[in-house]
């Protein structure tokens, strides 16, 4: 056993990469354990090949973790207007309960984590969404304020090279965006003009994609396929931003294909050492500080699976809150054919956004807001396979002509909303299924409460109204969280809070139970926000946690 590091970080996604950079930048020697491989953008993101549409995510060996699911809720037939369907398949879910779509939990194991597949929307949380309980009597408060995070938001935006417009409403800023906003794509422009006729304010989205060359990285060339991995390197995934910067310090040791398995507590609750597996070999390393950043599904799994006689409910779990308060993306998208729109497949995905309904009281009769965005590229309507599979029904000449005639005419309105924690939504350990190392699989239980259904109704109605105003002649597809569990944003399973009884980590990201154990990923979110994309907040929080570790304010 070897003790050579000042800190061990597990997971190199949004949170782990940011933590590792900040610690290295301040002189600490960091071991970063990453369960997945390192991706090679020019080889792994196959957007230059004719079958690019078949490449969904950067799928390399061992780049996805197995998860299992608890029973999903039955669907209420009275809410059928929220079902998912498309013009080709008809209803997507034919049974009478919710189902996972594809893997259900969309994520990537690899250097950069799920940011390798992310679209790159780069959002600050609405300040009031962090105070839901005290101001609005719903959900849970953050133990910190927007003002605490604000300087860290700015720091992250500078490092990543976020492009966005000055005007950000309630999200006040002390520093400007480093880059100007991106130009509106044909689809984005159409939604903006339709929206303004309906009294909605659509604006350029703030994006972790370069609108001009920045920090040695080239500008975006608007290929529209961010979720398949960006071969250009302008998308601000964690590998080309925080990891690259951390490696430049010379103080980062990055171990790929190295999965953290065991945490070994010692006297006083400190985690003395950890054990990880690389290939078939197991290694043990001592550490003065451990930061878990394996994501909101794997982090609680690790803590729960590391139970022992001293810790019968797992580590960091005296509150019994590990795995509880699971929150997911409440999503909706409606797509229509707009005959006089062309080339809707080109441009930056999600280039325009409407924040009008995003505050906690943005939607009538329910607490928790939502936002709308241009979604046509994000949901993959960028090539003929998508059109032939989802939009143009039938076969023969009509199919081929339909694909030609309709290609580039789809317009999609997407929306994400707040998810309020509930007792049924949680992550626990599967009682029967284990992985190759004998660790129980994480099991996801997801339940949509009435507030989520109400928000979905609002999102669907507003999206349909917008499409009609934009000139859509017919609707051809709708997808939503009512019948599909399809989570790209997951949070909350190791909630941050002031009280050791109701939360897992404190306001610095430190475990209430173990003085040298920190969590720096999406699992610490006490609330999800009203549809904001989470990575920038995960990273801002991670920098703040790293600063607290370094300054020794806590845990020394």
């Amino acid at each position: 056993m070897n003790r050579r590091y000042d800190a061990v970080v597990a997971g190199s996604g949004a949170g782990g990469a940011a933590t590792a950079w900040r610690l290295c930048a301040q002189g600490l020697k960091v071991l970063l354990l990453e369960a997945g491989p390192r991706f090679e953008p020019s080889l792994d993101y196959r957007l230059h090949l004719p079958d690019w549409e078949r490449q969904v995510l950067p799928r390399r060996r061992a780049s996805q973790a197995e998860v299992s699911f608890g029973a999903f809720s039955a669907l209420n037939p009275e809410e059928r207007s929220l079902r998912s369907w498309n013009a080709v398949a008809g209803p997507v879910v034919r049974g009478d309960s919710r189902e996972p779509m594809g893997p259900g939990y969309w994520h990537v194991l690899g250097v950069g984590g799920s940011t390798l597949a992310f679209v790159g929307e780069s959002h600050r949380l609405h300040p009031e969404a962090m105070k839901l309980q005290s101001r609005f009597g719903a959900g849970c408060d953050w133990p910190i304020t927007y003002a605490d995070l604000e300087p860290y938001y700015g720091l992250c935006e500078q490092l990543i090279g976020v492009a966005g417009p000055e005007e950000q409403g309630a999200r006040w800023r002390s520093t400007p965006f480093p880059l100007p906003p991106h130009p509106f794509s044909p689809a984005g422009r159409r939604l903006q003009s339709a929206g303004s006729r309906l009294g909605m304010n659509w604006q350029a989205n703030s994006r972790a994609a370069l609108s001009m060359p920045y920090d040695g990285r080239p500008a975006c060339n608007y290929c529209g396929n961010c979720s398949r991995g960006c071969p250009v390197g302008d998308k601000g995934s964690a590998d080309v931003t925080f990891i690259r910067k951390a490696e430049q310090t010379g103080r980062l040791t990055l171990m790929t294909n190295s999965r953290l398995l065991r945490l070994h507590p010692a006297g006083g609750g400190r985690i003395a050492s950890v054990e990880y597996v690389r290939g078939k070999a197991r290694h043990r390393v001592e550490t003065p500080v451990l930061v878990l950043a394996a994501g909101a599904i794997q982090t609680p799994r690790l803590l729960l699976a590391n139970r022992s006689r001293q810790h019968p409910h797992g580590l960091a779990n005296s509150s019994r809150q590990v795995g509880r308060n699971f929150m997911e993306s409440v999503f909706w998208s409606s797509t229509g054919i707009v005959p006089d729109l062309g080339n809707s497949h080109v441009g930056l995905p999600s280039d325009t956004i409407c924040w009008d309904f995003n505050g906690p009281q943005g939607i009538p009769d329910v607490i928790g807001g939502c936002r709308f965005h241009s979604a046509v590229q994000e949901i993959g309507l960028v090539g003929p396979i998508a059109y032939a599979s989802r939009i143009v029904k039938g076969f023969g000449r009509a199919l081929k002509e339909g694909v030609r005639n309709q290609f580039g005419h789809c317009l999609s309105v997407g929306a994400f909303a707040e998810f309020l924690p509930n007792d049924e939504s949680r992550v626990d350990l599967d009682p029967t299924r284990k992985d190759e190392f004998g660790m129980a699989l994480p099991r996801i239980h997801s339940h949509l409460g009435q507030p989520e259904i109400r928000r979905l109704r609002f999102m669907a109605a507003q999206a349909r109204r917008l499409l009609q105003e934009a000139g859509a002649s017919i609707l051809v597809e709708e997808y939503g969280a009512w019948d599909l569990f399809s989570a790209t944003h997951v949070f909350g399973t190791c909630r941050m809070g002031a009280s050791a009884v109701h939360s897992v980590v404190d306001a610095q990201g430190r475990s209430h139970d173990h003085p040298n154990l920190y969590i720096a990923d999406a699992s610490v979110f006490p609330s999800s926000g009203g549809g904001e994309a989470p990575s920038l907040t995960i990273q801002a929080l991670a920098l703040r946690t790293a600063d607290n570790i370094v300054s020794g304010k806590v845990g020394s």
Partner: protein
Amino acid sequence: MLRSDLRRQLLKVVGAFFLAQGLPVAPAFSAARPSAVERRTFAAFLDALLPRDDLAGSASDLRVDEQLWALASLDGRFGRLVALGCQWLNLTGTGSFADLAPSDQIKVIEWMSASDWNQIPRRFYELVRQTAVETYYSNPAAWGGLPIKAPPQPLGYPPPWQ
């Protein structure tokens, strides 16, 4: 739904379907060596789904049939479904589906596309159509008449846009 996930999901449905019908998933069917009749039937079916026109070749012009046979040899469920589907197609007329008049082939496929979701003709239609369009449109030779002329990279779609 994203493409390859759609096919995976359909394959899962097919597996469940076989179980429900009491049919073995891995039958005494050798997709590595389909018979000449099966090959001809399947090619005719695929060409009716994706026929040749002025701007692009048919499914078999673009060798979609060969690629689907290759897939069938790797995936027992898919192979089984193709074999059953071809058998069914050849029971619809007096001889092989391949010898039917084009208008009759279209009538047969229209019927399949609206038939019971839980029976072989519909499952065959759905899964083969999905796999065929994925394979067909992965070939730039199928892109005639579309505004895309090349994959999205390395050139991207730089502005200005119309």
